[in-house]
């Protein structure tokens, strides 16, 4: 059995002293311990993307990411996507295009989209497919995600870009 460890977690610009099993996936540490429940459990094996967060700017499945492997890397969760009342362009576009149905997967979808746009401010359809094909949606909102990403890119250009 892995001995407990004390780990310093960098989440949404704050440091958290976290004590526990270093094998614990970041998803459960965020949800059960830090009270950040925007990342959702969907599969537990990194195939659905509902739990996606940014780790040093990269969108990763938090359900297969052990807390002990994070080191000093910076985690950003969907709760920190908006800045106060100001929605992130992706969130704004998601609203304009009315993407969510049940909404359960959408935090992960938005995190994948935000990471994509930070890397490619004007992504091609192939880049969107590549970046979002790890995010499942059982309600089938895919048809709205693509135009919403294009709209978010436009909003970011208008506002000088931010992610």
């Amino acid at each position, binding site marked *: *059995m892995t001995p407990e460890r004390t780990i310093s977690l960098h989440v949404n610009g704050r440091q958290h002293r976290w004590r526990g*099993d270093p094998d614990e996936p970041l998803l459960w540490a965020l949800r059960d311990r830090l009270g950040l429940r*925007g990342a959702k459990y*969907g599969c537990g094996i990194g195939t659905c993307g509902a739990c996606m967060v940014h780790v040093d700017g990269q969108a990763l499945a938090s359900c*297969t990411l052990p807390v002990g492997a994070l080191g000093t890397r910076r985690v950003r969760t969907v709760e920190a996507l908006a800045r106060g009342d100001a929605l992130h362009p992706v969130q704004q576009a998601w609203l304009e295009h009315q993407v*969510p*149905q049940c909404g*359960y997967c959408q935090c992960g979808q938005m995190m994948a989209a935000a990471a994509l746009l930070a890397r490619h401010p004007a992504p091609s359809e192939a880049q969107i497919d590549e970046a979002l094909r790890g995010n499942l949606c059982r309600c089938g909102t895919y*048809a709205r995600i693509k135009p919403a990403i294009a709209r978010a890119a436009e909003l970011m250009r208008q506002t000088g870009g931010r992610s």
Partner: protein
Amino acid sequence: MSAPGAAAGGLQRRALLQAAAGGGALVLGFRVGDAAAQTAGAGAGAAAFQPNRWLRVERDGRVVVLLTKTEMGQGIETGLAMVVADELDADWSRVGARTVAPDGRRFMMTGGSYSMAVAWEPLRKAAAAARQMLLEAGARELGVAVGECRTAQGQVRHAASGRAVDYGRLVEAASRLPVPPSPTFKSPREFALIGRPLGAINAPAIVRAQAVYGIDVHLSGMLYAVIERAPVLNGRLARVDDRAARAVPGVVDVRVLRGNVFPQSPCLRDGVAVIATSTWAALKGRRALQAAWQFAASDNKASNGALASSAALARDFERALAGTATRTDPDTLHAGVSALRRGSAEGLQAAFAGAARTLDLRYDVPLQAHAPMEPVNALAHWQGDRVEIWAGTHFQSRVLQRVRDLTGLPAERVVVHTPLMGGSFGRRLEVDFVLEAVQLSRELARPVQLLWTREDDLQHGLFGPASRHHVRAALGADGRLLALEHAFATLSVRRQNEPEGIRADGLDPTTVFDALKFPYAVAQMHVRQHLVEQAIRVFWWRRGYTPNHTFVNECLLDECAHAAGADPLAYRLALLGAPRVIDYDNEGDAERIDTGRLARVLSAACEAAGWGRALPAGVGRGLASTVTDTHVAQVVEVDSRAGRPQVRRVVCAVDCGRVVNPQLVRAQVEGSVAFALTAALKGAITLEGGRVQQSNFHDYPLLRIDEMPAVDVVLIDSDAAPTGIGEQASHPTAAALANAWFAATGERLRALPLKPGAPGEPRPPAGGPTPPSAPGSRG
């Protein structure tokens, strides 16, 4: 009330209509005495104006629509709130909605895509009555005649003087007025909200990650539980060594749950629950369990889970269809029952004898998983003489009833909160997971959240019923359909869950209804049902057996058209004939097809899809339709040139009566198409030795974004009362795709999921059978 037989697919519409009216006929009785209604009529000091059980107006002017329907992604919260707000002349920016707690008197269930159809009239009446009361109170407040005032945007306005008073200020005065028994409705020309593409009420909370799903509910001191269950149905726990599990830091307890403590939910099997202070500790403890299971030695396939297998099921289907069932296996194969005869045995024989051409076809539909993105879970807080429950369920009445059966607690001591659900597709009509959470909370006297993992969901869950169909069709020299003989074998959801709903002659009316709902001209039509039993739990999956029979009937029509050398659209329109209304008896209630409306959506879909226009070789279009109140037709365009079906475009024409919110209707169509494409191209649950062979999304893949076709929705203008769209558009897609594949390749695919080039089928023109592969794990 327990509403016998009421579960989405099999529910009786009459019961539903009564349910929508509040379990009685009292929509406009405004029965005071409802817990929520006690402030109404209070007059001075009233906290809110609540003339009935459907809405309240707060003193600050906010309007809260009180729903007995549950939101799970289908947009019903917004749709119903719009109906109320419009008729009330409320200010939409100040309208909210919440799902009420079930009270044990009102039947509370959401399913079958009926919510809008059954709520439209009662909600409008309730809101119109409230508007009339507010108008009267407002006129008095302004000291003018009622006739000089009008309502708009949450205000009573007096045009002549330009003065206005907010609804919130009329709470007390309106509460003192009598409720008008027959209020006047707005005319549709006056609708301010209905028909507009408004955003969903809960969308801002969802994009801000503030929406609370069942899995997100948190209570201080709560524990987290997962359950290791017997790997096969009806397996028993022989012994368990839980020492290693208990040694995992955070594990609080390990409890054996016997499946038979839940006699009302026979789907539950023996299990060992690990309860911990975090989800991760519970999962880790579960992995450390050493459990041994024993399986029944019985050779009864209906009860011995270890005997269940896809191969055995296929064999039993074949034997049932061959008619040898009752002699060989009385326990598990039931005698065939003829459900309907249009014509006579002699007529059928004569039609086949005189046919210019006959078709003899077999179709196959596999077991399907619901796989909502949020796996089922429930939080229960046992408090000695009462229990509080937070669970994503849309059958709250069943929760009350089953918790009472389990614990003896009367309905008023069972408090059910319904948080937002991360999808359901029928799964959350069963309440097994709620009972497990209640039982664990009772044993531990702590709040316990029970989580089914994705593996639990796929392996121990409930599945959409598989079926095998044998269809014979006789065509005349002119190609018209003379006779249809359809025998099918399936597993019965009702026999497993509500056996009292099986008819004395053995017929399960829910399995045959959609086979019989065939509006095309045919003089002889015989349908025969064969029920097979295996220890496989089947359940409502996107409305009963509609997906199965829509696939069969809609492929069959296409095959007949091609056999007759006719264009599939022209063939259908010819068989539909002159517009008329046909009522189908759905267990005492009429379900209606208007052939004129059906012809219209068929033509509209084809027109928008460019039906008949040339396509590149290897690309084809296919047509299919369905009617469950709402008339839907789809054209799928598929590209076969890569050797596998690549769906490029789906056009869907929808006549759902008056469109309350076009963007929500479109969303449901887009989503239904995606859901259906998963089933058509990928999804299948298979069993071997009683064990489900799929376990997670790597081997039960869902459609991904790069496989999503363009979806064009054509909404038909209509003044008819609105009908549902939650799942209707998912029904024709598989058939439309199979028909398109035939048009593209000449290859007929009659088994779902569609596998081009499978053994026994002709090869596609190019490439081999390479289904899209699931991407590897990320992260």
